[in-house]
């Protein structure tokens, strides 16, 4: 298991050092600094073996977190643990920076003592930890001031008005005996991610479907590869220990219901169901239940969490189509025309549209005309960048460019890298629809109807490229 855990700043100075096992000595700390942090070459592997000690590291901004071991540890687990540790620290004191780590070193030691015992990761759910490691994280001066003046969480609902929520602080310095056993049973219990006795005046749920759509298209408009990777991110502010059930238009579920129910169901929703290639869930979801019934049921953590991730490859709605036209006029001129077509309901608006058209290295001058937005030739990036703030569905727009080239005797043709695109649309390109999110809390007197639920869909471009 993990023998030692170190946090360094970008200079390689140790900020936190916790050794769990005898086989990791002080020299290990230096070995990592000399061989990895101070190495001239770019990092070639996140796993480094120095003098029979293995170091597994991750980097957050300019802070290095390294776990050292002499055993054959489960490497995936060590990395997952390091990520988790970053999450926990972020939940206590915000961004992981040198200043924040130094300011909170006592807290970090206390956390480490709790979440890593003899190198074995223990319960690391922030919700549970906050019940008994109650030191307030200290944020760096600047952000501390801001957070005083501004609400911690700013949320924009689907209906467009601003929602404000203030983090509720529980400071339980002196626990009663009951509280103590409640804490321990929660930390070790089956629902380690949620503590008992949470109360909200208003029960609310925020659900975001965040998707990134990836595309590689041939110049003729043929889809070479496309997939959507999506996440369902939730914020839940619910009292008690609510039982939730999440439903979406998963093809397998709908087909199954279609068989059992009537043909009406199939006609109504069968067409809109989507085939999910694979999905993974937050640990609160009962996996065996998903495996057998394909239903997603869980007791949610309090606050922010990622409920699930998924991937689809079939019947993806491609929000934009890029039609390139490149003509070489003689040896010193290129004419480029790019048309973009938005391919979604005309009532919806896409935002932050950016088209990047690569230009040859020998470009000497560019003249641009675009119908909409702003376009610029960026010599340092060898590309024309065309930005459009907003664009409605079922519209098209175009840009034409005349590119002057320096005459060269280089026989080699320009490789023509693909045209890439960025955008954001208010729907899920995979076609995923949230069908329901039911909340049951039998012990408290609120019902599913009393919970205010917010759902929004955001589709963003991943790697969205069209060859030209």
């Amino acid at each position: 298991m993990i023998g030692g855990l170190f946090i360094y700043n970008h200079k390689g100075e140790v900020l936190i050092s916790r050794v769990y096992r005898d086989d990791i000595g002080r020299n290990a700390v230096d070995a990592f600094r000399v061989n990895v942090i101070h190495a001239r070459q770019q990092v070639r592997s996140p796993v480094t073996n120095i003098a029979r000690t293995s170091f597994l590291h991750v980097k957050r901004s300019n802070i290095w977190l390294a776990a050292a071991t002499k055993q054959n540890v489960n490497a995936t687990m060590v990395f997952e643990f390091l990520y988790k540790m970053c999450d926990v620290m972020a939940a206590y004191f915000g961004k992981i920076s040198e200043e924040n780590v130094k300011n909170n070193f006592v807290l970090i030691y206390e956390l480490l003592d709790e979440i890593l015992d003899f190198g074995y990761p223990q319960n690391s759910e922030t919700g549970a930890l906050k019940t008994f490691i109650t030191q307030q994280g200290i944020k760096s001066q600047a952000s501390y001031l801001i957070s005083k003046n501004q609400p911690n969480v700013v949320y924009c609902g689907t209906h467009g008005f601003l929602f404000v929520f203030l983090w509720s602080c529980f400071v339980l310095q002196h626990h009663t005996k009951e509280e103590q056993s409640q804490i321990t049973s929660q930390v070790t219990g089956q629902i380690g991610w949620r503590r008992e006795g949470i109360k909200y005046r208003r029960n609310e749920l925020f659900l975001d479907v965040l998707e990134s759509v990836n595309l590689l298209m041939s110049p003729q408009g043929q889809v070479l590869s496309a997939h959507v990777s999506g996440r369902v991110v939730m914020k839940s502010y619910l009292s008690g220990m609510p039982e939730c059930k999440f439903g979406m238009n998963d093809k397998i579920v709908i087909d199954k219901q279609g068989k059992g129910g009537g043909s009406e169901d199939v006609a109504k929703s069968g067409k809109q169901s989507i085939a999910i290639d694979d999905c993974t869930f937050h640990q609160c979801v009962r996996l065996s239940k998903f495996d057998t019934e394909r239903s997603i049921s869980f007791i949610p953590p309090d606050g922010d969490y990622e409920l699930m991730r998924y991937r689809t490859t079939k019947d993806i709605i491609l929000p934009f189509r890029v039609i390139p036209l490149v003509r070489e006029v003689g040896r010193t001129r290129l004419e480029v025309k790019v048309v973009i077509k938005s391919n979604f309901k005309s009532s919806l608006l896409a935002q932050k549209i950016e088209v990047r058209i690569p230009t040859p290295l020998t470009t000497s001058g560019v003249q641009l005309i675009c119908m909409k937005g702003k376009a610029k030739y960026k010599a340092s990036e060898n590309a024309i960048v065309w930005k459009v703030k907003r664009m409605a569905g079922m519209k098209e727009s175009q840009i034409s460019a005349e590119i002057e080239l320096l005459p060269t005797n280089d026989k080699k043709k320009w490789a023509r890298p693909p045209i890439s695109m960025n955008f954001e649309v208010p729907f899920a390109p995979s076609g995923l629809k949230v069908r329901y999110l039911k909340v049951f809390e039998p012990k408290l007197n609120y019902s599913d109807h009393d919970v205010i639920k917010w759902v929004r869909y955001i589709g963003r471009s991943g790697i969205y490229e069209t060859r030209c």
Partner: protein
Amino acid sequence: MTDSKYFTTNKKGEIFELKAELNNEKKEKRKEAVKKVIAAMTVGKDVSSLFPDVVNCMQTDNLELKKLVYLYLMNYAKSQPDMAIMAVNSFVKDCEDPNPLIRALAVRTMGCIRVDKITEYLCEPLRKCLKDEDPYVRKTAAVCVAKLHDINAQMVEDQGFLDSLRDLIADSNPMVVANAVAALSEISESHPNSNLLDLNPQNINKLLTALNECTEWGQIFILDCLSNYNPKDEREAQSICERVTPRLSHANSAVVLSAVKVLMKFLELLPKDSDYYNTLLKKLSPPLVTLLSGEPEVQYVALRNINLIVQKRPEILKQEIKVFFVKYNDPIYVKLEKLDIMIRLASQANIAQVLAELKEYATEVDVDFVRKAVRAIGRCAIKVEQSAERCVSTLLDLIQTKVNYVVQEAIVVIRDIFRKYPNKYESIIATLCENLDSLDEPDARAAMIWIVGEYAERIDNADELLESFLEGFHDESTQVQLTLLTAIVKLFLKKPSETQELVQQVLSLATQDSDNPDLRDRGYIYWRLLSTDPVTAKEVVLSEKPLISEETDLIEPTLLDELICHIGSLASVYHKPPSAFVEGSHGVHRKHLPVQHSRSFEWAASLLLVSGPAAAMDQPHVIPSQGDLLGDLLNLDLGPPVNVPQISSMQMGAVDLLGGGLDSLVSLNTHILLLMKAKGLEISGTFSRRQGHMYMDMTFTNKALQHMTDFAVQFNKNSFGMIPTSPLPVHTPLMPSQTIEVSLPINTIGPVMKMDPLNNLQVAVKNNIDVFYFSVLIPLNIFFVEDGKMERQVFLATWKDIPNENELQYQIKECHLNADTVSGKLQGNNIFTIAKRNVEGQDMLYQSLKLTNGIWILAELRIQPGNPNYTLSLKCRAPEVSQYVYQTYDSVLKT
């Protein structure tokens, strides 16, 4: 009130000041001081002299201060063992505290104070905590047992803590179960033989129940533990798999990968034709693909593991090649790994896409990555024949870019393409020669020289080209020198008239002016060959070479199986067994895949013993270097060059070269079989193999009173299609009491019929008196052909390819030979040793042989010093012959 200020105090007299502050009356001051001490400790300053002062602060109600003091204690108790005892009382007291958090804190810290002296004081509190009413305390105590075991194993056993730990597996709280499992797994690693974990179906069931309920980390401990279990039959394996599969949807990729490990292991036990087996295979693919959308570090670990999984079970991901296409923003380590997997998955179906990608990659910035991409194009050409032409033209395009390292890498792979497809793409040689001057790396220079030498007859100025390399001969690396020597000899043999001077020059450079033993030896061999018999020299040097194999750099199958058992761990990242990088007792216990039949279980275990550290280090080369052939010659320990002209073909085994092989012939003759005795005719005889031909050597004795004439012989149809190639060479009448010896040449082109036993041959001999029938069991070694030596890579691939059910294991008893004698004896019988390894004192011989009917048999012979019983494991596509091969081994080795 930020804490970062503690990091900045570094003035002189600091320790003294701290000491004063630690003894301050005010609580707050003391806390401040302890924080400063911890900060100093973190930065690496020695603050151990403050030990008594810090320990004084321990008696406090303030939990935060207590934790800080504990932190200090854990760090320095070892350097101040006597002082550490001062803290014991406080721990014992805290273990009785009504607050479970404090009890747990005490028991947790206690285990971290690694001082042997105080451990005995901790036994009682620990015993209590193991039975504590609060699960939080119990789960902490479980880990504490592992800590204590690390300090004083004997004491932990004596105190019965291991039993308490085992009891915790049945605990009602899943987290307690998980920690107990983790602790037991770690402890059992240092006791490989003890059945500490006691994995029986009841316990497995408990673990599977806890699996659904515990934290993500607990799930990993349990899954890793489950993977060490060997289910007793396929039904049990299937039911465990069914309960593990839901974990594949967990958000924590370590849970997913550990579940994959369990499933990959238990798949071995499921019948391949069952529906469940196939469903399970299908279920494995999506989660593996999903791992690639995680953070880059996890992607890296996943890719290293997928590399193993693709080699073990290519069917799982063969449809998914697109997900391994490199993204522009991937970190370099992810890119390099993806590239590896792309080549493994490349096939005729996807080659066009793969090539298009590789061509893109070859224009990237990172030098290593570009080189690897170029190499990959070459490997595609070798792997997928249909794509070779396209690959070659892509490589030519890349050479045109004139980017130095791209050109050099391309030339190296083109050399290998030539070796795979000789006489196909030589038209491009001219283009290659244009780049001669820009080559500065030994690999590329050697490749170019090899090409020039190999195709010297088609290059008009080959002599000039090679001569230009000769100028700086002594500055070249050995690799280049050796290749240059060979290339010039080739050139000489092809164009003797113009190049005599050149060859003399290089031979004298290699033999007289160099002190590199390889170079000198090779130089002398050529020199003698050329001076003794240039015609033979030509046959030897320019003989046709076997083509290089397609699938390269596969991991040795036994090592691969072991690594599959370590999926997700560092071993799977390094592609080395744990024993190669873990010190001491941990991890030495070797893991192996479960095997379906209980009979062959032992065999699998022994197979895995092979892949020791030596095996891991000695990974196969990408493509056998061109020196191999000559290497073989050197190993023969040639006597005076007089014998050399006898070499007529490279195919000939060592036996003939030594003019000996006597051993083997003698050994065969000792088995003289009395074949028949009837009506005055007595025939005895034996089978032998000489110079690649088979003979039945018989002695005919006439014990009758009349002479015998008109001898003829016929064989019944037999398993190997043996027929006599000539009539029985008994031409003169056989007089009474006369004995003649005849040698009947045999070949194997006759009709085949399977006999039982397989080596049974029915013979009819006729003379003027009667027709005689007899049957004889042929020693199988006469069917072992001279070219039965497999290439290493082919051997590895074939071994892997042959299903495990075909493995059979035998014992050769009471044999007192060393490995070298054994291999010599076997080689005399055309059983060729391909590799010899010493693994933990045992000699492992890997051998191959080929029967006349083209059946290959792969063997692994394990010889333990001091143990006269050898273990022979045979693998063959036609397992029915194994038994006879074993008999041959046995008889050869015992004579």
